[in-house]
């Protein structure tokens, strides 16, 4: 049997190795996106040395890829020390940014020296008015365009990320063209999530379902994405939460993934983080719970539903929306129905889901 990257990922899963860590360096940000899921607290944020300690502890537990995010990671005053610390340790560096601070040629040249594997930049529309409306800051689009010019001229790989909202859904073709202008691929996120402290208001920006169906079908027809159901009956797990993924917030609190804010420990309080993650330091209720849920959800929550294989299901969102991590919450059902319908349209099968009852949940909690 040939060994593929997925085989290695399965091994990491079986060994509960936290191979990808997302570090939220700071919740400070130079933009004001109204839908942002961050929920800052009145606590002091980790400084450079503390993040370097965190890197050592993560690496000892088997972390391979570090994603620096936030807030806006470039706003952290020790960003460069931390990013250099990632590379000095031989770890893979990824960064999620709004790009604004990269409208600076010298900074981008320094950034390229770090050899980031990927830089994911949020693009909220093809027009300045749309992007700036979503980011809340006039001029953010123009700065981003300048940043993309800088990045492409020094050959840094960028993936543009566009969360689809009611405000930008009509200009997505043009968003693709913005990407093409710089030689960058655009990925679309059809899921808008609640905030980390459970506020559901970002969901009001979610795009229309009819629009999403047509959009997905169009993307498939143009070969921009694939669309097929996940084999939920056979799946070993829903996701890598608490096993292959780990998130640390600006205060050092460790979570099983970016979405699930059930605390595992604080990275500065545990010298042997590997022992915590692998259960050698005693039982950890959070890890035990999220792992169990991730293992059971495909069969218990998704398999009984026709649209289950298509649903983007996040047990953390389920818990935030309904109080039950296993609940097939409104937005997950809608995501499944939308993709199922798009799948049928692409195959030329008669649609069964229209604007009818089954979509009446509208992405909001039932």
């Amino acid at each position, binding site marked *: 049997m040939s*060994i*593929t*990257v997925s*085989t*290695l990922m399965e*091994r*990491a899963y079986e*060994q509960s190795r936290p*191979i990808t860590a997302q570090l939220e360096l700071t919740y400070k940000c130079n933009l004001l996106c109204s839908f942002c899921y961050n929920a800052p607290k009145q606590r002091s944020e980790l400084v450079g040395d503390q993040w370097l300690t965190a890197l050592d502890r993560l690496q000892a537990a*088997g972390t*391979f890829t570090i994603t620096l995010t936030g807030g806006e990671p470039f706003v952290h005053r020790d960003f460069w020390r931390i990013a250099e610390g990632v*590379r000095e340790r*031989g*770890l*893979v*560096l990824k960064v999620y940014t709004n790009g604004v601070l990269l409208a600076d040629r010298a900074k981008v040249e320094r950034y390229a020296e770090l*050899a*980031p*594997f990927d830089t994911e930049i949020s693009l909220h529309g093809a027009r300045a008015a749309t992007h700036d409306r979503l980011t809340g800051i006039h001029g953010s689009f123009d700065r981003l365009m300048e940043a993309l010019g800088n990045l492409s001229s020094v050959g840094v*790989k960028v993936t543009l990320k566009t969360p689809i909202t009611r405000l930008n859904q009509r200009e997505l073709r043009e968003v693709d063209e913005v990407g093409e202008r710089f030689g960058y691929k655009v990925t679309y996120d059809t899921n808008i999530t609640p905030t980390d402290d459970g506020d559901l208001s970002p969901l009001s920006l979610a795009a229309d379902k009819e629009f999403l169906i047509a959009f997905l079908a169009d993307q498939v027809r143009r070969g921009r994405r694939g669309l097929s159901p996940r084999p939920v009956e056979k799946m070993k797990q829903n996701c890598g939460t608490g096993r292959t993924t780990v998130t640390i917030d600006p205060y050092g609190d460790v979570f099983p993934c970016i979405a699930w804010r059930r605390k595992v420990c604080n990275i500065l309080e545990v010298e042997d983080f590997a022992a915590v993650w692998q259960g050698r330091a005693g039982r950890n209720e959070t890890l035990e719970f999220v792992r169990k849920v991730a293992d059971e959800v495909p069969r218990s929550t998704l398999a009984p539903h026709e649209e289950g294989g298509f649903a983007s299901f996040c047990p953390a969102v389920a818990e935030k929306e309904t109080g039950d991590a296993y609940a097939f919450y409104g937005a997950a059902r809608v995501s499944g129905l939308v993709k199922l319908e798009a799948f049928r349209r692409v195959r030329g099968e008669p649609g069964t889901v229209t604007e009818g009852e089954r979509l009446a949940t509208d992405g909001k909690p039932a």
Partner: protein
Amino acid sequence: MSEPTTNANPAELVFARRRDISFQDFGGEGLLVVPRQSLQIVLNGTSLRLLQLVDGRRTVADLVAAFAAEYDAPSAETLEADLLAALAELEGHGAIERLPHD
């Protein structure tokens, strides 16, 4: 600039890991990431061990000796040929580079 290799004795060649790569052992096989080429590939056990041993000082002869000590190796010539092939592959992926002769 690296030297042309045609005249060099392969046993004396020295390789170094390129600074921008990352790799990790995933239980026998390894994962190699080369950002410059947006490359992410699986390394077999031999290539993974080579990447761990290549340090800008060891010669190919040293690598052959290290492998012979660690594994039930075939003859030294076969081992050297195998390792040179694996080194060439790693070089092709941009994971290592040949150092110039002193």
